[in-house]
């Protein structure tokens, strides 16, 4: 395998990156060249062995997408198997705070929206209600008012959309109707012209057909009558000949009968004469 091109082809064939034509050509060469076939077999074997390594399974990590720069994202970062480390760190931090709190008398409380952190003895803190202070009820009220305003705004928007839609629908319908009518009118004129033209053409065609028919018909009738007359004349001729034959035959019979009668008469006369002669004797 000295040829560089050849082992490039070998690799392309081995990894199925040849076109159908190239593949067929290469397979033909494999059949003709035992050295190349041996090389191919060797490469297939080693590929098979190399291919024994299977993929390792890995769980893809959670991804906390953070909008902004890559640096911000890096801080949010992917958490893979290392999720344990921050979890342990967090737990240790909380434990430390609890222990420190225990020894320093840490007291944490919330009171009317304030977060109180105290060390040692807890001190009562007078919380003056301020008109500006926003409590839960106020928040609910604000939210309700905002919701009502939003609903009213949305209802108005829907009404406007419906009206716009209806107007557009009506105008669209009218426009379409007008377009259809104008199209029908235009087509009607066009259709009349077409029908007139068609009828004229049809009449012309019919006339031509009729003329042709009569021409053909007359010629055929003439031919027929001529044939008929010829045939009738031949028939009459044959009849006449037959009659003549019969008349000749009749005359011939008559003549024969006359001769026979004459002979019979002669015989009768002879016999009478003989009889008379006998009587006289």
């Amino acid at each position: 395998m000295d040829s560089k091109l050849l082992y490039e082809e070998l690799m392309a064939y081995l990894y199925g990156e040849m076109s159908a034509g190239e593949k067929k050509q290469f397979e033909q060469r494999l059949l003709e060249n035992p050295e190349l076939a041996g090389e191919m077999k060797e490469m297939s074997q080693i590929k098979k062995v190399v291919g024994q390594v299977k993929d390792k399974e890995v769980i893809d990590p959670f991804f906390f997408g953070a909008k902004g720069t890559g640096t911000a994202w890096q801080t949010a970062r992917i958490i893979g198997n290392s999720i344990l480390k921050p979890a342990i760190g967090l737990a240790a931090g909380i434990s430390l705070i609890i222990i420190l709190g225990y020894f320093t008398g840490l007291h944490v409380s919330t009171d009317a929206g304030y977060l109180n952190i105290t060390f040692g003895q807890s001190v009562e803190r007078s919380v003056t209600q301020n008109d500006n202070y926003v409590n839960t009820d106020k928040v609910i009220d604000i939210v309700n008012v905002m919701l009502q305003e939003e609903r009213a705004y949305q209802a108005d928007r829907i009404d406007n959309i419906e009206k716009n839609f209806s107007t557009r629908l009506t105008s669209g319908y009218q426009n379409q109707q007008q377009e259809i009518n104008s199209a029908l009118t235009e087509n009607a004129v066009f259709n009349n012209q077409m029908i007139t033209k068609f009828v004229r053409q049809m009449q012309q065609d019919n006339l031509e057909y009729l003329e042709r028919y009569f021409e053909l018909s007359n010629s055929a009738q003439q031919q027929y009558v001529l044939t008929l007359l010829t045939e009738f004349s031949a028939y009459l001729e044959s009849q006449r000949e037959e009659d003549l034959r019969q008349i000749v035959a009749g005359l011939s019979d008559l003549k024969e009968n006359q001769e026979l009668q004459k002979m019979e008469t002669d015989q009768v006369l002879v016999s009478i004469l003989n009889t008379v002669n006998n009587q006289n004797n």
Partner: protein
Amino acid sequence: MLAETLQDFAIKYSDQIVRKATGGNEQAFSKLMSLWYKRIYNFSYKYFLNHDTAMDVTQKTFISVHKSIRKLKDVTSFKPWLYRIALNKCHEEERRMKRRKWFSLFGANEDSQQGELWLEPPAEGPFYNPDQSVDDKELEELVLECLSELPEEQRILIIMKEYEGLKFREIAVVLNISESTAKSRLYYGLKTMKLILEKKNFTYYGF
């Protein structure tokens, strides 16, 4: 080598997700990461043969991808682009590990730690006797060990072609070489693999 799984199928047709991710869609990026995470991990793993390093490299790769995916103009070139980033991260990690080893006061410990990156050569076992059946796991370890002994340029070709299923054209883009060079490096890589396997008295019994 790669069996067509649902994930491979999804990867093949992930252009739409890549397009969304290039537009800054975080959900699409998350989906893209879940599609490609295993592939990049396995690529890094075969490069270092160490789970923790592979995890680190994979994470760094995706951080880098997230930073620069908006600059990707052609979504169809996502695959070679991704592997190029992954390979760069592998090289960075390799350099970092070498520096750490060099400057470490505890060189001996580092050496032993470094040693964990590469699999220990298997003790005398079934590979040395063709009559014995070769356990899949052991064969896998042997192949990976032989792979680690290959020159880097041949090793990376085998990883990309055999295990990651990149086309020669894509490998050429990742490594910035010609397709012809990619093919010849793979050819010599496989040849060298054969020699290394033979040195370890491996026989192709059953192959």
